[in-house]
């Protein structure tokens, strides 16, 4: 029988892996953004679990900062995606390959 903190850590790892796979294998830019959010959620879960396990507030502080970073990331990424869609008329990430320098 698994310990519950261990189970939560396994769930966090699973969320992170699913998010990472989504970023790697999908082609839709918005879906990739959502998978990044899923990765951040997995990291948050592991931070909260460790913070509870050690009875230490540092993990919860870190989760707060992650919230701020995630919100700012979305607020910046969405206008960039909008610009790209206006430019290429598509959400397909391969259409943007002309952007590489």
């Amino acid at each position, binding site marked *: 029988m698994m310990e519950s903190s*261990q189970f939560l850590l396994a769930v966090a790892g699973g969320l992170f892996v699913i998010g990472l796979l989504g970023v790697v294998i999908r082609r839709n830019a918005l879906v990739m953004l959502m998978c990044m959010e899923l990765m951040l959620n997995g990291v948050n879960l592991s931070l909260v679990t460790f913070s509870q396990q050690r009875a230490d507030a540092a993990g919860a*502080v870190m989760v707060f900062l992650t919230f701020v970073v995630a*919100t700012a990331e979305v607020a910046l990424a969405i206008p960039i995606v909008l610009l790209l869609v206006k430019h290429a008329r598509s959400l397909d990430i391969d259409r943007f390959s002309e952007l590489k320098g």
Partner: protein
Amino acid sequence: MLVLREPMRVALALITSMTSLGAVYGLMGVHFIAAFQVLIYVGAVMVFMVYVLMLLEVKEAPGSRRFSRYVLPGVIGGALLVAALGAGMLRGPASAGLLPGEGDQAFNLVEFSSTFLTQYWFVFELTTVFLVGAIVAALAVVNVSRRRQG
């Protein structure tokens, strides 16, 4: 989320998983993080995302592929990562046995707040600098789009 074709369904799946994570946080005893999870992620980030999905409504060609050309190496790498994580988890030492949210180890909001504002106030202030940078970057993006239009 990995195989759904419609972005809106992916968004709904993500909202479901975030709400469930909020419930998990609530069961762990960190109620205010649960509240923030629901408020910020579901209430702000995902509403924004769904709004953009409805705004764009870019129709992909019917025969278009769902996956990038990295699907095979990606799946292999993901399997390797899962194997490494699982091996580390099984081999690790039996942990100290503090179950989350148990007894007096449970999360203490007063302690958290005082720690947050005494020990970590500088980090908290740094996030404001970060947010100002984000605002400047967003304005730059808006500027670029204006210039493109004429």
